[in-house]
């Protein structure tokens, strides 16, 4: 396991690459011995790097209950991520972590869960969803509301249209922004669909996605009578060290890499709105 104080990474090996959408791939990473590089909790992140190209923080998309490997779903949108998309299985990268706090999965026990995600924002949420399914009896009803720009941009298709929908006491609600051929599901933005679904407001909510989506989702949840104390989200800021020193992810008195990335929505009220 990588020491949390260390800026020196471990070597990771990409053992599998799965194309999720035209610009998102999921990378399976293990250490040099073929084992999971380190244990993690839902919501935690890791620094992945290709020396000479760059290093960046990514949320771990696999559940802590997966003890064999970690998965990272990465959108090609910059120098490092574009480069990662060119790699083939067998390629080594560097990895350090885990960083950050986590979703309090134990606190969620026996609660009905509502997961809301947009686009690649499903990646950190998936870590909780699969944890909940691995411990299905510990949790109540599960609703997953997930939207993307188009049907082609939906990630984890096997899970959202297969594995998850087959779970008991579980509903997956998918939506895409605009009508599209061969799509007979819901069309419209996530916040609007949330209003239509009119969920009971006794659920614990985890919301993750583009900042603009989160903003309107929170407004919609407020209308439905959800309290901020029931809602968790993650923040995403530029990070370099991962241990609260380099100053980059500082918002108010918090460092997102160390005090976050998971925040309960009432905690955000005490922070400047710089996210």
């Amino acid at each position, binding site marked *: 396991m990588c020491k949390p104080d*260390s800026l020196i990474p471990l070597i990771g090996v990409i053992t599998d690459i799965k194309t999720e959408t035209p610009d998102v791939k999921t990378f399976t990473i293990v250490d040099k011995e073929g084992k999971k590089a380190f244990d993690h909790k839902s919501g935690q992140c890791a620094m992945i790097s290709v020396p000479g190209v760059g290093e960046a923080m990514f949320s771990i998309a696999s559940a802590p209950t997966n003890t064999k490997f970690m998965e990272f779903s990465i959108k090609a949108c910059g120098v490092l991520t574009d480069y990662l998309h060119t790699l083939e299985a067998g390629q080594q990268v560097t990895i350090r972590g885990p960083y950050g706090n986590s979703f309090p999965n134990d606190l969620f026990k026996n609660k009905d869960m509502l997961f809301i995600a947009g686009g690649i924002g499903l990646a950190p949420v998936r870590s909780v969803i699969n944890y909940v399914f691995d411990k299905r009896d510990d949790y109540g009803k599960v609703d997953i509301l997930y939207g993307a720009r188009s049907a082609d941009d939906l990630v984890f298709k096997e899970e959202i249209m297969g594995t998850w929908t087959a779970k008991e006491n579980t509903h997956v609600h998918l939506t895409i922004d605009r009508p599209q051929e061969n799509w007979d599901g819901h069309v419209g933005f996530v916040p609007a669909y949330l209003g239509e679904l009119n969920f009971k407001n006794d659920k614990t909510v985890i919301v993750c996605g583009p900042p603009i989506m989160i903003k309107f989702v929170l407004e919609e949840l407020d209308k439905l009578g959800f309290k901020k104390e029931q809602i968790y989200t993650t923040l995403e800021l530029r990070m370099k060290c991962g241990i609260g020193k380099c100053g980059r992810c500082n918002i108010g008195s918090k460092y997102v890499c160390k005090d976050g990335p998971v925040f309960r929505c009432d905690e955000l009220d005490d922070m400047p709105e710089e996210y």
Partner: protein
Amino acid sequence: MFKMAKKDIPNMLTLLGESMDVYAPVKKGKLTNFEDFTEGAELDIDTLKTVKSPKDFFLPQVENLFSATSQGKEINIEAKALRDKPFVIFGVRSCDVRAMEILDSVYLSEPVDKFYEARRENGIILSLACNEPGQTCFCTTFNIDPAHPNADGAMWVINDNIYIEARTEKGENLVKLISKFLQEGSKNEIVQSQTAIREKLNKLPYSDLSLDGLEGNQLLDLFDTPQWEELHKTCLACGICTFICPTCQCYDIKDYDTGGEVVRYRCWDSCMYSDFTLMAHGNIRNSQKERFRQRFMHKLVYHPDNNKGEISCVGCGRCVNKCPSSLNIVKVIKSLAVKCNV
């Protein structure tokens, strides 16, 4: 308390140089900075403030972390060794000593930064009382006493002598190394000098700078105050305040391809720069107003919030001297205090 002849300082430093690296204020051209004290170096302990603070020796402007080589799909990394050779910094002013304690509260808090910790463990600081505090000094605002500096050893220059008081075990060990230059001194002999320093401090222009208005839990009030609109206007985003600030602590991590290998290093960075928070999906601080506010909110509000109220400024006045548009933390403190008195 010991004393030695001021003229013996170069020989004393040379002797220390046999067992450790020695850094002292050295004059080059018109500028005095902490440098390697080597033969022929022009020692300058009369200049009050070095251009850069001695934070370089603990948080270097550039520090290599590891080197990486690739072969096919394989990567090998080799961590750079932590600092293991002792060193002494001679002649550090009280403000810069306090600055190290502030950096400690960041870099030595869990999870500890190992590179910094190794340098801190191997470093010995000899501080020097400020006989002539400067017009831009305001360390007393932060309860720093330049007449009796902290650190491993404290020193006072009085006429042709320099008085040395060991204040930690490291300081005591260092004094033993240079014992051949020392004779017994008495605390009474520095009292007059201390009184004179404190009288001068009371007459400085910023001696009455008050932190009222920054205390208490009003983070969001200070964040939202319209004062920032006015305050930031002349900021050029040059970042000089960050680089000369003894408590500024932000860094970047980058790679350098030497041709044969990639060296990953960290280097100082500034929250005043536009790309500091730039991400693929945008920037959380798009305007200079927001970046300017971040620097001062961090020093005056966020850092204290996490560190028992301790403000991340030591009143060294370097930013007052160096800002090309005469912006500085004194102006910000005064402006925020006015806001809160309204």
